[in-house]
């Protein structure tokens, strides 16, 4: 056992950190630090900077633009990115549909889609959930009927993150209504410009617009847009969901948030001293740091074990990372809101055009209550925490 990274790994960390320092545009860095949302251009700009460097999709196989880094290097890269803090690549392309295309797609599909994902020429969104199919995803009803060389898609997806920006959506459709529910599903790529698609915004409780309903009304899609075989889409979905889960611990991002929390707690005052010197509050911060350190160690153990894992089945331990990661992020968002005391109250965070009056209270306060409310989502999406515990019970405990 050795806690230290090797000299090579440390050198790698320095290289990555230096690159981020020198290449992440200031405006984008500031947004993350201040809790202001990125706009589409921020994410596109950063992705193209990474792509130019050859670091757009380090976890992909080398032949498709990956870097061939070890699991530890990938971990370091991600952590540095979150701590920079830089926008993380849009997950729907690089983490979700990209790996599915690589694992299940045809060569012509790889040639067509992968380079455009790397460079974020295409903005992807994930059309899995439906009003009646959330945790029970396999009960989805959106149908794709074969008509010659096309599928005709009808139905509704919901909670579709960033569909309002999307060029493409990957959808799970039912192609066989007679089969067992997991066995009649097909994975199809759909151009958002196809006639018959309607996107309707859903506003979340913090006032922002990230999710949407997407309606399909006789949407005609070429059969060649299907990934893998008809009725075998569930294999793609399971593979994708496993990847989604393991990306969700967000240790680096939480470290950045803890630092932000400490910064704010040293600017806020309680009585005659800074809040950070209040023992009660300092202990609350320390308690969450203990949790975070433990999660980091757990994640490192998972990463280290990956070096020797066979096949591409995700480690069921990734459910532990998802649960703890979400609880820690939510806990930090709670402390950030608590830190500003009564200044959680004013609603002055405008997501599109920022409030252009002077802030009520401290200028760091506006995003914090909305973030607390918004981050309740983290224990709901990506497989809710209850579902993750079911996975632990079945896959790890054999119950």
């Amino acid at each position, binding site marked *: 056992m050795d806690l230290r990274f090797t000299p090579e790994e440390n050198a790698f960390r320095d290289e990555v950190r230096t690159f981020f320092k020198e290449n992440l545009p200031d405006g984008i860095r500031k947004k993350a630090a201040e809790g202001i949302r990125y706009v589409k251009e921020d994410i596109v700009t950063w992705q193209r900077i990474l792509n130019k460097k050859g670091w757009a999709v380090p976890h992909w196989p080398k032949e498709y633009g990956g870097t061939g880094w070890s699991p530890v290097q990938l971990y370091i890269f991600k952590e540095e990115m979150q701590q920079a803090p830089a926008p993380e690549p849009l997950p729907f392309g690089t983490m979700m549909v990209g790996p599915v295309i690589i694992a299940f797609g045809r060569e012509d599909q790889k040639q067509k889609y992968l380079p455009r994902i790397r460079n974020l020429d295409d903005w992807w969104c994930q059309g899995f959930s439906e009003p009646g199919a959330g945790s029970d995803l396999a009960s989805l009803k959106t149908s794709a009927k074969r008509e010659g060389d096309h599928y005709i898609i009808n139905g509704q997806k919901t909670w579709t993150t960033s569909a309002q920006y999307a060029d493409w959506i990957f959808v799970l459709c039912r192609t066989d209504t007679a089969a067992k529910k997991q066995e009649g599903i097909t994975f199809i790529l759909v151009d958002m410009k196809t006639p018959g698609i309607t996107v309707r915004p859903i*506003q*979340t*409780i913090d006032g922002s617009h990230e999710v949407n309903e997407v309606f399909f009304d006789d949407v005609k899609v070429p059969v060649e847009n299907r990934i893998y075989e008809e009725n075998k889409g569930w294999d793609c979905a399971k593979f994708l969901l496993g990847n989604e889960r393991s990306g969700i611990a967000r240790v680096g991002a939480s470290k950045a948030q803890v630092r932000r929390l400490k910064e704010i707690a040293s600017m806020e005052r309680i009585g005659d001293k800074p809040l950070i010197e209040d023992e009660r509050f300092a202990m609350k911060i320390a308690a969450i740091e203990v949790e975070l350190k433990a999660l980091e160690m757990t994640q490192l153990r998972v990463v280290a074990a990956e070096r020797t894992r066979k096949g591409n089945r995700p480690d069921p331990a990734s459910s532990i990372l998802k649960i703890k990661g979400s609880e820690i992020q939510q806990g930090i968002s709670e402390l950030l809101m608590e830190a500003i005391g009564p200044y959680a*109250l*004013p609603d002055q965070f405008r997501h599109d055009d920022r409030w252009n009056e002077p802030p009520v209270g401290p200028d760091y306060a506006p995003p914090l209550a909305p973030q607390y409310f918004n981050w*309740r989502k983290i224990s*709901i999406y990506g497989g809710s925490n*209850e579902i993750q515990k079911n996975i632990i019970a079945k896959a790890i405990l054999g119950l």
Partner: protein
Amino acid sequence: MDFELSDEQRLLKDSVERLTTQRYDFETRKKFMAEPDGWSRAMWKQYVDLGLTALPFAEEHGGVGGGPVETMIVMEAFGRALALEPYLATVVLGGGFLARGASDAVKGELLPKVAAGETLLAFAHIERQARYDLADVAATAKKDGAGYLLNGEKSLALHGDVADRLIVSARLSGDQRSKNGIGLFLVDAKAAGVSRRGYPTMDGLRAAEISLANVKVGADDVIGEPGNAYPLIERVTDSAIAALAAEAVGAMGAMHEITVDYLKQRKQFGVPIGNFQVLQHRAGDMLIALEQARSMAMLATMMSEEENAAERRKAISAAKVQIGRSGKIVGQGAIQLHGGIGMTMEYKVGHYFKRVTMIDTMFGDADHHLAALARMGGIVGKASAS
């Protein structure tokens, strides 16, 4: 020991609940929020007609002579309805200060107008640096002839944007955080030197920043004892905390009911999700938190008129701690058990969650009151002699 309502109180409860269930559904609330004041003048009129704005005041001032239990009944119903109107600001806070501290002349002139719903009030007290310390007042009051000259910046005044009169705290002497030397003054919101900036709050209500620049007030506008108004501030704030506790219980109760209904209706994996034991237990934990909060809201109500300030403060702090903690358990649970739908602005549950969360930040959050209670030696009793 009696936790039952009297016949009259039951009647009040029925009529307020009838009004809010018939006239304050979620869709209507959205329309009220879009009105110029951010709340409904028509609803306010209904409250007046029902006698709610007159509730706590003496009959000689056009009131009904109700007590804290009556206020609790109204606030709980408002919590269920997520009512937007300035009842807490005008009747509980503003009215409380006038009734307890204004001169007879001012009471005789103003209270009937407050009771009739014609005059709106707000408490302009919090300052940027104060956090939750009620004694942290930097605004100043300087003697000016028979009256005073007020200067300073007040923040987060609930419904301060619409108030006709403001109850302003300012310091006559002493250090910025001293309990001695604070005065309270009745200020016309349109007086020279007063400027206001209103804004919405996270829970859909309204508040204001208020600046005072050489604002003149007369001798009659003093509330309580100049230089010794702190006990009055505590006292009226305690009534407001009791009222907010009742409101929070109304909101939590509604949130819990909606969630349990949803567990029965929503199907996944071919069964109502309420079949999953882990969700049953969480709904059970939420109920426990709700009932503990309800008990403490009752304690706060019954203790809010207690003359012994130390005993009163302990009970109020204990209640505020419980409300804050229960609010988190019920609110976070309600969102989680709903899944995605709970996260949406279109659905009611999130609005309850936001209101309950914001109530925790008013007049001291759970941590603030826990520390205060610990300093007061707790609430159960002294160490046993062994």
